[in-house]
């Protein structure tokens, strides 16, 4: 056999410990996976209810109020209803891909959440929590490629949407899925570039290290502020803003929900889906919202960082802070939906390619220049000034080129169509 001759299989020990799990005991591992999965399902249920309630409040309606107290069980009722509906597969559908697509969008949504540190005492125990005599990291897994797993999974999530639209064998779902994939591929670049700024600050890909680097506070003008070490301040807001916008687009949420623009595309990529398969898409969509909020908290807002108010239950406070921060972002997503009108498709592409990507790239270069300046002992203010001047120059050149191209196009349109 060929591979038996290769020396590495005998000499090379594959080391699980580089993947830091909560515990390496497989039984514990399975319990944790189930816990996280159950938690996500409950979070999705509450998120759907929360969204409907907040949106109805903003529109002066009452919203769901029948099932359970404040209508909190409405999602459960809807889920049960969907469960009993007829499961349709269109005649023109590619049957295997049609059945596969919902899982392709659900599984990445779940996997993304597994590497988010949702708790752990980062203040003085390096992110470990002690409970029932066990010491562990409060995240399912801390893979060495860390945050890249998030990019990989959000890239794979596109397939669910794309194949669902294509395999339906119908016109409108196909249009919806083509829109979706173009949008997600475009915004993934901006997402990755603003993520690179975070990686520059943390010097590590691991989510655990990214959080650990943001803990401890920083001195601003001689005053010690505990939140000043969060990446949102340390990186100067721009990466966060780009990430928030690109993340909203990646989630296909309003104002970037052209994928399922009801006026144009019936229901979008999942028009032909019904029953349980439809609910899987629904689940994946809202799971992604929760995950994206959690990722933003991890990257820019110190994850579970916060004051430990009472040492005896020091495992509890980080979890509380983490979820409080996540809820703020969930509210922001709902707020976007209730407030902003949907973009036109060309506006969407313009925003992604001509604004977000150049800005995040320029900002990344400025941050890198500051980093080099610190190593070389340059005057920090000169570095920032030169960097900003270069950035403004590059941006205005780009804007000039875009404007020129637009004028040229208008001119040739006139020539052709007069």
């Amino acid at each position, binding site marked *: 056999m060929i591979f038996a001759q290769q020396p590495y299989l005998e000499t090379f020990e*594959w080391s699980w410990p580089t993947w830091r799990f909560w515990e390496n005991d497989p039984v514990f591992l399975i319990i944790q996976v189930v816990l996280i999965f159950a938690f996500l399902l409950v979070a999705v249920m509450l998120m759907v209810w929360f969204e409907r309630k907040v949106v109805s409040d903003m529109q002066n309606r009452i919203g769901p109020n029948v099932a359970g107290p404040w209508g909190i069980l409405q999602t459960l009722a809807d889920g049960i209803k969907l469960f009993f509906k007829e499961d349709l597969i269109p005649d023109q559908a590619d049957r295997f891909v049609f059945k596969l697509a919902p899982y392709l969008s659900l599984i990445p949504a779940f996997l993304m959440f597994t590497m988010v540190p949702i708790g752990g005492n980062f203040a003085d125990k390096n992110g470990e929590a002690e409970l029932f005599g066990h010491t562990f990291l409060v995240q399912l897994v801390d893979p060495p490629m860390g945050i*890249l797993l998030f990019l990989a999974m959000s890239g794979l999530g596109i397939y669910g949407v794309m194949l669902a639209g*294509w395999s339906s064998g119908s016109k409108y779902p196909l249009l919806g899925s083509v829109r979706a994939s173009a949008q997600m591929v475009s915004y993934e670049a901006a997402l990755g570039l603003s993520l690179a700024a975070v990686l520059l600050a943390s010097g590590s890909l691991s989510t655990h290290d990214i959080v650990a680097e943001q803990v401890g506070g920083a001195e601003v003008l001689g005053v010690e502020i505990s939140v000043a070490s969060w990446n949102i301040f340390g990186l100067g807001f721009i990466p966060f803003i780009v990430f928030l916008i690109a993340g909203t687009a990646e989630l296909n949420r309003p104002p970037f929900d052209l994928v399922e623009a009801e006026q144009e595309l019936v229901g979008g990529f999942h028009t032909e889906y019904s029953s349980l398969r439809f609910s899987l898409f629904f689940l994946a969509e809202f799971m992604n919202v929760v995950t994206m909020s959690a990722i933003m908290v991890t990257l820019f807002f110190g994850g579970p960082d916060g004051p430990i108010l009472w040492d005896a239950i020091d495992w509890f406070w980080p979890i509380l802070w983490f979820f409080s921060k996540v809820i703020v972002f969930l509210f922001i997503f709902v707020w976007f939906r209730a407030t902003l009108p949907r973009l036109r498709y060309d506006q969407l592409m313009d925003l992604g390619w001509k604004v977000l990507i150049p800005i995040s790239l320029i900002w990344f270069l400025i941050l890198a220049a500051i980093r080099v300046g610190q190593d070389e002992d340059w005057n920090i203010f000169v570095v920032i000034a030169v960097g900003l001047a270069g950035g403004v120059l590059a941006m205005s050149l780009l804007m000039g080129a875009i404007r020129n191209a637009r004028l040229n196009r208008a001119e040739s349109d*006139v020539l052709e169509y007069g």
Partner: protein
Amino acid sequence: MLQVIVFLIAAAIVLVGAGGVIFARHPVHAALFLIQTLFGVAVLFLVIEAHFLAAIQVIVYAGAIVILFLFVIMLLGVDRSENLRVEPIIGQRQLAWFTGASILGLLLAIIYSVDGATGFQSSRSALDRLGVDGEPLPDVNQLAESIFTDFVFAFEVTGLLLTVAVVGAVVMARKISGELQPLPDLPERRVSRAADAADPTADDAVVDAEEA
């Protein structure tokens, strides 16, 4: 032992996927098999502890390139089974057999003649840099150091090549319609548009002119 099991499973995934790419009759199914292959290769990267490469493999190839393949397949409407009996270029099939066989022979020759042409040794041999504390650096740092020191020229040239390719694609995609002529006066345009709207046959004339 664990790595052998993982290797065998991943290799099976890669081979089944690769076979599927060739034998699937439907282009979209072939693209799906391609994703399976790329995923299996990512797992193989994980086995040799190249975590960064594994992630990049999924992000770039599965997450972007195959998406673009599917995009083209769906938009150009070639998503139907092709008739394999018709040979578009004469002699193509014989040439394909010959090329495939020679590539296979070449690969086998490399695997048997060079020690460690596959697997751990070759993938790690360039990556043996030690950090300040004497421990081996993580693979990301090692890759970065190799790319930006020893192989910086190749890296820059590749970047330049990609830029040239992008510029070339833009030039090819641009629609050039004869010599640019001075902009007509705006009022005249409005008048002519109004005339178009009034006379529906004028639109057809424009379309005919374009087709010609």
